[in-house]
């Protein structure tokens, strides 16, 4: 048997898994965040401020975004731009499937209420008795 030298160079046979854990964790975090955004279909909207209110329900809500695009209010639901009539169809379909489902309106605070009213009217015509007004907690 060959004798080992007194000061043999240190050799590491184990794989260093720390960088792999780092990369995997970053990927998990990335996909969690992207998945959350995709599930909510949340548009970047400057919401009104509110000091009261309840936390949103999350996945169970139908989120209706009303954003200003080129100074024109646009209804966006799940990434798709809709007319008020289109919104009415979507809401009616959703409420037919699940009458208890709630609607959250996330509208730009600068939009005149006259341009928000058609959205509320469309929800009402579709059978909704109420909406949840999305706001940013002040």
């Amino acid at each position, binding site marked *: 048997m060959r004798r080992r030298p007194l000061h043999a160079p240190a050799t590491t046979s184990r794989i260093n898994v720390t960088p792999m854990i780092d990369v995997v964790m970053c990927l998990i*975090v990335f996909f969690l965040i992207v998945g*959350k955004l995709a599930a909510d279909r949340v548009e970047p909207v400057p919401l009104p*401020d509110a000091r009261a209110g309840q936390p949103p329900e999350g996945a169970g809500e139908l989120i209706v975004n009303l954003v200003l695009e080129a100074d024109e209010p646009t209804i966006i639901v799940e990434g798709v731009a809709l007319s008020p009539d289109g919104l009415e169809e979507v809401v009616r379909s959703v409420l037919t499937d699940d009458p208890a489902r709630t609607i959250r309106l996330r509208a730009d605070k600068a*939009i005149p*209420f006259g341009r928000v009213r058609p959205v509320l009217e469309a929800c009402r015509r579709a059978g909704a008795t109420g909406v949840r007004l999305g*706001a940013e907690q002040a």
Partner: protein
Amino acid sequence: MSGGGASTGLRRRDARHRWETQVGPSMTPMVDVTLVILIFFMASAAFIGPEVVLATGLDARDEAGRGGTLTLPDAVIEIRLEASADGGVRATGVGLERGTIDELGASLADLGAGVAGDDPLTVIIEAGEAVPYGSVVRVRDLCERSGLTRVVVR
């Protein structure tokens, strides 16, 4: 007890081994994971953190003012919001005549304190075409803070 220093991770120095300086578990993976979790919660908070919702009823009347299927109760307070020439918003109702929203807040607080414990009132917010949506939500918020949680917007 053999192998003195085993509890600290130190090993006896002899001709073949140098002192091992690491004591206890390696902190690097734990710090890595902790930082990633911290970043995750910070990013999540930025997306979902401060948003709240205010449950609001829809008026049963249609655009032409015809009645719907929902019958409003008798105890109803109406607030009318109008855009003023100076760019502000004026409120009429709850004892006010074209008052500011701050004044409306004070009136609603008095009203809410007066009806506490009674059957809840229904507040109807009727906003003009030019009133910014943010002002409507602000009035809805004032109602909520005053304990008036049954609110209809039209």
